[in-house]
């Protein structure tokens, strides 16, 4: 299962990268969202899968699955949520001001 998950992560990363290389800001943002899915799965997988029970002391018996990656992922989820939320608002404010969400049209150095 671990190998399969890693491959899945790789595929998600591939898709996300493809999206990130798009011109439309929306696609890029979705790409970053997929990236975070991928990395959360990666973090979970490196901690080992199905190697123990749910890390709740009262409800299951040892061995427990590695709880630390879970805590890390939780933090990462919240942070990535915060960033995505900000990014979305930034994206549409940017669109409203600049009239385009096409990264190619948004090019041009800052010197203008």
């Amino acid at each position: 299962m671990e190998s399969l998950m890693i491959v899945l992560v790789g595929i998600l990363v591939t898709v996300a990268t493809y999206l990130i290389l798009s011109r439309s800001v929306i696609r890029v943002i979705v790409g970053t969202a997929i990236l975070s899915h991928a990395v959360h799965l990666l973090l979970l997988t490196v901690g080992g899968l199905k190697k123990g029970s749910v890390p709740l002391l009262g409800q299951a018996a040892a061995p427990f699955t590695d709880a630390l990656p879970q805590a890390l992922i939780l933090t990462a989820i919240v942070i990535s949520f915060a960033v995505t939320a900000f990014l979305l608002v930034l994206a549409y404010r940017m669109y409203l001001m600049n009239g385009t969400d096409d990264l190619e049209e948004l090019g041009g150095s800052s010197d203008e």
Partner: protein
Amino acid sequence: MIVTLSIVLPFIAAALIPFIYRYFKNIHLGWFVLVVPVVLFSFLATYIPRVANGEVFVKTFEWIPSFGINITTYLDGLSMIFSLLITGVGSLVILYSIFYLSTKESLHHFYCYLLLFMGAMLGVVLSDNLMVLYVFWELTSVSSFLLIAFWHHRKASRAGARKAMTITVSGGVAMLAGFLMLYVASGTFSIREIVANLEVVQSSVYFVPAMCLVLLGAFTKSAQFPFHIWLPDAMEAPTPVSAYLHSATMVKAGIYLVARTTPIFGGHEVWFWAVSGVGLLTLFWGSFNAVKQFDLKALLAYSTISQLGLIMCLFGLGSAALHSGYSTESVIYTQATFAALFHLINHSTFKGALFMMVGIVDHEVGTRDIRRLGGLMSLMPFTFTIAVIGSASMAGLPPFNGFLSKEMFFTATLKITELDLFSLNSIGVLFPIIAWVASIFTFIYCVIIVMRTFFGKIQPDRLEKPPHEAPFGMLISPYILVAFVVGIFIFPNVLGHYILSPAMASIYPMFPSVEDMTPHIAAWHGHINPELIMTAGVIIIGVLLYRVLKKWRPIYQLIPPSFTLNALYERVITSGEDVSGRVTNRYMNGNLTYYFVYIYVFFVALLAGYMIYADAFSWDPSKDSVIEPYELVLVFVMIMAAVAIIFAKQRITVVLLNGVLGYSVAFFFVVFRAPDLALTQLVVESVTTALFLLSFKYLPKLKNEYLPKSWRFAKVTISIAVGATVTLIGLAVMNYDRFEPISKYFEDSYNLAGGQNIVNTILGDFRAFDTMLEVVVLFIAGLGIYTLIKLKAKKGDADVESK
């Protein structure tokens, strides 16, 4: 201590300038400033006898002792020559400037820079610590920059200042690297200590590189070929500055450095050839180019270059003496060095006088162009006298000091051909030949100075002002210098004994006898020697060539203007700027997609590249847990959803599919025993989707992205490469189990932290700090969003700062 004070005094004075300037508006600021060099000169002069006796004065103040950087002042014979020059010529120049510069100029700036320069220059010649020397060295460049740009409203001043600063600071940087190599090799920044432990330095790998770098510094500062190009442009500075910095003192800092480091590097073949060769080339090139100048100051600038080349060349020749150590034979070659020191002083006297002469001409008639000048002899007789004496001395004619040193120079070049070293016996003959040719050109331009300015017809309509003799005050300084020109010719050996000999001792510290190295200077050696014949030849051929100057002048046009070193420098700069600009704009095109491509390509190249290079990949699925069929289906669902996102045409589809992925991830969290994660992921995913929907109100619909085939291919390749890299490393990481996870510790969470939910105790206790900051992150995002939306820029709401 007092030596140290002599460095500090100019700086203190410079700091006081603004106050003096404010309170004594009626008195020319120069009078106050004049006190400084005069006091310093007199004070240093009192040390002459003791230094001549071989005493040295050392004093150390700690500056950055932790890194061996201390202010050690060191007064010996060599420093003495330069200190006297700096303060002596300094006094005269300041005196001259009092009459030259009107009180309408921003004198407080001028004198402030000048004093800074003086202090810095004294610092260079009086420092023993290489780093401190470097400090003052750069300070001379900076103050020179400020002085050249004194009339900074003129474009040429700014350009000249920039060029001078760029070239000299570049050289300084190289020199710094050289100094650091010396430090690394020797473990000390003290020149004396390095000289005392020469073997260590000379045997280190850094020896030759350090030598070359130090020479770069010296050559740029002393305007040696091909770095001389800054000096003519530096003539944009007020003439007192030209006289002081760009002829008498600063440009001689490079000479000083060569002299100072001769004990370290001298004797090495590279040093010999570099110093003498570059010097010789510069000598020739400067004199050759001086002839074609129309601006008197430019002519003097090339002349200075040429003369500096001469001195440099002599130091190079003199260094040969160090090759085989002390012997009666090798001592002969030290005479080149002696000649160098001698000419150094002579040059300062006659060139200083000449510059002041040109300044007077410029000041009184308003032009320095020899095509507009002429016939001033009768109107400006005193000035004429200065010109004649100075030029004659420079041309190497008796009865002036230039004659003596020029003869000694010829002697040295002739001697060196006899040396069976550095393959000198074959190509060494170039030295006397080139020296002689250069002297001819020198003679010609000296004639030009005198003839074109003072003889011929006067052209009043082409002059800015009606010509008349300079005020008395302006003549004092040049006349003092002229007096030295003559005086030294008459009493050369006083100078030799008190000033030059002690300096020889500094340059050849390992040679026991100073007396051996102090030749008797005489204008007439009692017989006609080759040197005299050479001089005669110079005069004859020089006069002839001057007469037919018009005929051969066109040879200067043979080199098209675009092939001059100056043009090359400009071209390097402009094309450098051009290429840099185009390259930079090409890859920094503002298109984020490109930036991502760079980043991803680097990511893949570095990580996958190293994985393959180091053969770090390994994969062992045997330890994997089993794959349940439903997991397989879910993986399939996720892959489908992910791939479908790429092809989705509507933004809502994209977001919903992302939601599917998120929910699937949540389900994996369930399957892999992560309840807290599953809960959080579910809510967060839903909220994220909601946020997408909310912001779609303001965002455009997705457009079809047209992509050229090659670009699409590149995108696909990069994406797959990134995914593959992540997977490859991930698989290898999964197969790496050398260590026990630290999380076993947390399984005692109930006893340690009073909670049964291990993940929650980690978040709330073991790693509560992360959680606390994560809350902060969330809050910043929320507040940021509020700010973006509620406090946005309104149309026409001009920002104070935005342009």
